[in-house]
């Protein structure tokens, strides 16, 4: 099979999966088998592209021309490859987990859930492999719309309100800022293809570059840079698997991925490094990191704490991109993968706790580690990764970001990373401490054990992945290095 066909299949497979899943709505077992099969096939397809990209090839395919000069085009480059690998790989694990969660909690509308999930993955693949801004925008909006039914899954008034905020902020920012930025770029540069080294070149005035960057950063609402982060905590009304995959992997990562990709392939790391008008971005990202961490510190609801932790961690990627050094770009790319693995583990754990013990608040978790050792063990690994301690993947990415900041003497950024590390420890370690070292209250805990097997298996897998990425970061690192080199 040619790489071109593989790329198209990677988008077509989940899309076709949607139809099959919908068709099998009367047979839950078949439906879930189809989900797993689709996820498996997708990750095989994506993985088969990896050796090519590692060898330096950039397979691409132009599907058709949407408007004169503006084609629907896919092209696989290292960053997209990395994102595609992460998203497709975690979909399998997440599907396993979803099956346990949805059945364990007897959720309604399960077919719609799986259909939209597959659709979200198709859109994510489209974003990962987008060859120009137009294609990226197309799938970006598609992802927002297809995940809307997932966010409002429970159809309660609260869910509908959250849905409004979710849709309003994401569609609003993307149409008002991102679309204008894309069209402006098209008008300035005459192209919107992602090109190594950037397309804005030297002719564009510095002030314009700064304004454009602002339009892009706030236009990509999914990256959740403050003040456009509000949708993320709101979307936590969704079932936990949705929060896990979409709000730790697909949606938010699509956001920071887009920012990173735009910085690298539209602005160009070296071309923009000396431009003064973009200096505001590290401050904005730094502020988001610290402020979100402080909010997380005060949140008692576990999912809310995780949500704000996500907001904070996403801005690491934005910050790393904004430092505009090759090393920090490597760190940014790695952090997409590292945070995805770590955060999905944490969400899985939160969902497992909810399913097994029906607990949602941090203050209820005293001693729960004794009844759910696997879950809380995995949670600990995820927390370590968030803090950036070995032996978890978060350490590697943070290391590169710090190196990048130090190499160019951006000490503010170093201070932010250090301070946030302390804050991260401040809101994660107490949970771990409570779970393992505080005695359970006598009456509070019903007799319960671990969550259903598939859920525990899933979260153990991702926790293992987090550790594995620390010891064997070869493939992501190689991809990220290509990014910095090219």
């Amino acid at each position, binding site marked *: 099979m040619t790489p071109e066909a593989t790329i198209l299949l990677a988008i077509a497979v989940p899309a076709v999966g949607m139809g099959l899943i919908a068709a099998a709505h009367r047979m839950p077992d078949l439906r879930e088998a189809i989900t797993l099969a689709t996820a498996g096939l997708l990750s095989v397809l994506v993985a088969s592209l990896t050796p090519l990209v590692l060898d330096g090839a950039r397979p691409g395919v132009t599907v058709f021309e949407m408007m*004169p000069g503006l084609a629907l085009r896919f092209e696989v480059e290292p960053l997209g490859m990395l994102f595609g690998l992460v998203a497709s790989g975690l979909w399998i694990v997440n599907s396993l987990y979803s099956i346990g969660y949805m059945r364990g909690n007897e959720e309604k509308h399960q077919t719609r859930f799986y259909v939209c999930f597959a659709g979200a993955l198709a859109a994510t693949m489209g974003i990962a492999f987008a060859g120009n801004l*137009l294609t990226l925008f197309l799938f970006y*909006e*598609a992802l927002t719309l297809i995940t809307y039914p997932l966010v409002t899954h429970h159809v309660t008034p609260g869910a509908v309100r959250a849905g*409004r905020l979710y*849709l309003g902020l994401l569609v609003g920012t993307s*149409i*008002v800022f991102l679309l204008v930025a894309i*069209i402006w770029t098209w*008008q300035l540069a005459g192209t919107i293809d992602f090109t190594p080294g950037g397309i804005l070149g030297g002719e564009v005035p510095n002030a314009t570059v700064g304004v454009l960057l602002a339009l892009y950063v706030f236009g990509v609402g999914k990256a959740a840079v403050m003040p456009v982060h509000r949708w993320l905590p709101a979307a936590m009304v969704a079932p936990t698997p949705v929060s896990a995959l979409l709000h730790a992997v697909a949606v938010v990562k699509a956001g920071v991925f887009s920012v990173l990709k735009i910085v690298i392939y539209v602005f160009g790391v070296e071309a923009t490094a000396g431009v003064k008008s973009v200096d505001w971005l590290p401050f904005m990202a730094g502020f988001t990191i610290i402020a979100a961490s402080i909010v997380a510190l005060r949140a008692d609801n576990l999912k809310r704490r995780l949500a704000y932790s996500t907001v904070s961690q996403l801005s690491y990627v934005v910050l790393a991109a904004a430092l505009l050094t090759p090393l920090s770009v490597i760190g940014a790319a790695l952090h997409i993968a590292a945070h995805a693995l770590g955060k999905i583990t944490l969400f899985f754990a939160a969902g497992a706790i909810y399913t097994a013990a029906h607990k949602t608040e941090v203050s209820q978790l005293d001693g729960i580690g004794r009844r759910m050792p696997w879950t809380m063990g995995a949670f600990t690994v995820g927390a370590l990764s968030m803090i950036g301690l070995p032996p978890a993947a978060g350490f590697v990415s943070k290391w590169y970001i710090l190196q990048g900041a130090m190499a160019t003497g951006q000490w503010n950024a170093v201070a932010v990373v250090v301070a946030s590390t302390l804050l991260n420890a401040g809101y994660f370690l107490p949970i771990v401490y409570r779970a393992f070292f505080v005695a359970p209250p006598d009456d509070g805990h019903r007799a319960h054990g671990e969550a259903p097997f598939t859920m525990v298996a899933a979260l153990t897998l991702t926790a293992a992945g987090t550790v594995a990425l620390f010891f064997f970061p070869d493939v992501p690192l190689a991809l990220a290095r290509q990014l910095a080199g090219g």
Partner: protein
Amino acid sequence: MRSWRRSNLPFSKPPITRCNILISQNYPILHVVVPLIAAPLMVLLRHGGFAWLLAAVASWSSLAVSAALLAEVAGGGVISYAIGSWAPPWGIEYRIDSVNAFLLVLVSLIASVVVIYCRESVEAEVAPEQHYLFYTMYVLCLAGLLGIAATGDGFNLFVFLEISSLSSYVLIALGRDRRALVASYQYLIMGTIGATFIVIGVGLLFLMTGTLNLADMAARLREVTDTRPILAALAFLTVGISLKLALFPLHLWLPNAYAYAPSAVTAFLAATATKVSLYVLLRFYYSVFGESAVFIAHPTSDILLVLSLAAMFIASTVAIFQDNIKRLFAYSSVAQIGYITLGVSFDSLTGLTAAIVHLFNHALTKGAIFLLLGGIALRLGAVRFQDIGGIARVMPLTSFGIVLAGLSLIGVPGTVGFVSKWYLVLAAIESGAWWLALLIVLSSLLAVIYVWRFVEAAYFQVPSASVSRLREAPLSMLVPAWLMVAACLYFGLDASLTLSGASQAAAELLPGSR
């Protein structure tokens, strides 16, 4: 006067003059004549079923002829057809170029789709003894709209305008609600004032140039451009046409007319009538007065710009607070017309392309929405928000179609609305007005709100007892409606066809574009 002068027409391209021997040589008039002849036949036959069949045949043959014409002028040629072989500028000339060929295809295409839909919808909404009259008026309206587009003669244009208007007043008055009568009366008054303004404008031009042939008129206007009667003509034509195309604040007739007309009529008129009026505006501005006389000598751009922005924001805001969904989308039409005139106001090739492509795109989108709403009206009898709660469970295809077309109103990528918006924003940025680009996208957020009012009502409410008894709309209504929805998506993804048509039309209107 007019007949008394010699004319040396400086045609930009030598028109193909035709003799009337073969049928194919009579194409430029055939698409008007066929529905025009069908109308009296229907009255003679007095049978609803036959009348429908005849209307369908007339619409489809008009479509075939229009498509053939478009294919012929696609390369940039001009077909000139002299009625009764009286050579222009003395006789009435039909003049087909890439601008109106595009429009002819649009109008006859919408008519052909809607006529299929009519069968079941009209059955339910119009009294049986009036069916044949309905179709008579339908084809008359079609003939009028096609005639406006095809003719190259100022007075002939007025006549066709009145044919289409009079028949559309009747069509609106056929609505079930008694308010349809008041709406129709209102439209009659305002429409007639508009048409009379147009004919005054044409009369002034005729007095100054001695000709009614638009191409001839354009050539002779150069000598008298700066005189006061010409300025008066420009003003009368602008106001008159703006009334017909419902440019804010002359749109007052539109919401009621659309809301209370029979569903098929709403869809047909929303997709065609205002669009044809827009074409007339473009024709007079660019082909008759000339770009410099309209846009450089007078602050036409600024006036259009302000009115368009007012339409986009005020009409969209009003739409948000409507209870009747048809009325909501009628106000949305006023707002969308604002986008089109905004494109015109840029007075640039990109802006004009945006206007023309949005003219086509909006016709598809609104046509689809009103057709689908007709399905709800058929089953439920009403289209108010308080009645449709949870309707997505019983009419999933209808509801989902409305959502998709609604996304196109918002301008989500992959729909035709996105293509329009892209060009509109590009035109704004090209003209250096970045604040305008922001306003354009901001106004589309208002569309998010009103479309999502429908989404939340249809999907998130528990169906009432009366709703849960309903069935999906009949296939003969769903298929045409979904054809339009599919077109919305297809032309949103692959816009090369519509864009090349639009940009060629824009280039035709704006020769030597800057």
